[in-house]
């Protein structure tokens, strides 16, 4: 990929993906032509309504759900907020305890913290050095006051895939609802609400080739959950607000493409991922892989370079046209090392030197070559500047 002649190797697909051109094309008519409000009665509006329902069908099919269990939201953050706050509010009489993991996205952790301020209690489960939650720990954490277990399907920073089926089984054995943040999982690993045992599942279109600002919450039939956005009767009265019709249409297209292409795409990405990991670890001493060696997303590379700091790496990569991340993009303005890497037991100075490269379907083997060509030099340079680098 080039950007006005300048080379651009985009390796931050976990932060966001380009909207696929065919997806953008599908959205386009819904801005200025088929612009009706789906809640209205006339032909123009019915056209919009049908487009929304067609997209709902596509999303449902992609995750093994029924269409009436899919509710569109403004993104993954809203879906997670709704799942957690909605279950908490509707089940207050039953209990006040939530079990989650210490490596969830802030879209899960911060709603939990907000609930703690309201008097709910939250257990943040530890993870092992590879970022895995131990299902046995869920069993131990559940009390008779537990109303929700929320563990993400796959982590956005280190790509570790969680044993959600085992965890949901434990939750259900205790009559507790199970939510999973599957924002990073769509198109990367199989997502099936029944196989995963999900009562609630959050997704976000811009992570799989769809537009920013559209997501969905899957809500299994009969799940006790309150509303989050109150107002008009959209989404069968459960999520108010005029539907983002173009966004929803785009999400439907994108999920169909992403899940349909997964059988071809995932192995290709995994091969590039493994070449990147091996190449980096071979070329750069004092480097370790973050996350799980095998139970990881096909597109995720996350390595910790000792003696250097991540932002410096990013900017040097950026100067060479490589877009990468040092942990969650959402927290890049913060000075604290990633809560995920810290939870995996990485000392802060190693966490600060972590680099995340996340592949997408536009990436090529040449992109991998290019990174392997320039990255060791960048680390070498920064280590020269660093007072921590041992003399050799």
């Amino acid at each position, binding site marked *: 990929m080039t950007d006005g002649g300048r080379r651009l190797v985009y390796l931050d697909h976990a932060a966001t993906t380009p909207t696929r051109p065919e997806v953008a094309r599908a959205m386009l008519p819904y801005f200025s032509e088929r612009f009706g409000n789906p809640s209205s009665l006339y032909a123009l509006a019915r056209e919009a309504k049908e487009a929304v329902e067609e997209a709902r069908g596509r999303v449902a099919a992609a995750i093994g759900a029924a269409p009436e269990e899919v509710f569109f939201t403004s993104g993954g953050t809203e879906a997670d907020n709704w799942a957690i706050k909605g279950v908490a509010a509707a089940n207050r009489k039953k209990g006040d305890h939530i079990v989650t993991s210490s490596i969830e996205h802030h879209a899960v952790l911060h709603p939990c913290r907000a609930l703690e301020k309201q008097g709910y209690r939250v257990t943040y489960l530890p993870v092992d050095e590879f970022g895995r939650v131990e299902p046995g720990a869920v069993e131990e954490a559940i009390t008779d006051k537990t109303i929700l277990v929320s563990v993400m399907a796959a982590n956005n920073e280190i790509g570790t895939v969680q044993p959600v089926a085992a965890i949901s089984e434990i939750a259900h054995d205790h009559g507790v609802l199970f939510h999973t943040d599957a924002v990073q999982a769509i198109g990367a690993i199989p997502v099936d609400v029944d196989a995963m045992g999900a009562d609630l599942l959050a997704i976000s279109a811009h992570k799989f080739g769809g537009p920013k600002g559209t997501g969905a919450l899957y809500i299994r039939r009969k799940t006790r959950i309150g509303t989050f956005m109150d107002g008009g009767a959209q989404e069968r009265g459960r999520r108010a607000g005029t539907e983002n019709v173009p966004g929803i249409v785009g999400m439907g297209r994108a999920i169909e493409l992403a899940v349909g292409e997964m059988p071809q795409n995932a192995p290709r990405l995994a091969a590039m991922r493994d070449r990147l990991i091996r190449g980096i670890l071979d070329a750069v001493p004092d480097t370790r892989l973050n996350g799980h060696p095998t139970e990881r997303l096909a597109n995720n590379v996350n390595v910790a370079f000792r*003696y*250097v*700091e991540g*932002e*410096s790496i990013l*900017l*040097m990569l950026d*100067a060479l046209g490589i877009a990468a991340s040092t942990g969650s993009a959402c927290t890049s*303005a913060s*000075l604290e*090392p990633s809560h995920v890497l810290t939870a995996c037991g990485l*000392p*802060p*100075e190693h966490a*600060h030197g972590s680099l995340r490269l996340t592949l997408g379907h536009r990436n090529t083997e040449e992109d991998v070559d290019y990174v392997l060509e320039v990255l060791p030099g960048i680390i070498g340079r920064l280590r*020269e*500047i*660093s*007072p*921590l680098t041992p003399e050799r």
Partner: protein
Amino acid sequence: MYSEQVMDHFMNPRNMGEIPDANGVGEVGNPTCGDIMRITLRIEDDRIVDAKFKTFGCAAAIASSSMATELIRGKTLDEALAVTNRAVAEALEGLPPQKLHCSVLAEEGIHKAIDDYRARQGAPEASGG
């Protein structure tokens, strides 16, 4: 996010390295916060004849150390002590608010190195902070 000056001093740091026969050394910051600066000075006749840095940290930290060493080279100790973090940030054409602490760290590094020099000379400490 960063000014051109910051990017220039980050990509082409001035005075990077360590003076072998330094007579003033200051190390500030800690790895938990993600910033460590090590300033080495060669001081002769109360004047900084050479200043070098090594920095573990973000682009702003590297650029601040580079700029700070530039600003104090050739200066007397008192002149160097008068170089504030604001002066460093201004010379860099500004720093984002959450990165201002990098310029503070550079100021502290210089003070610490000069303190170290004065301590070695048996002189009183240069500054309270």
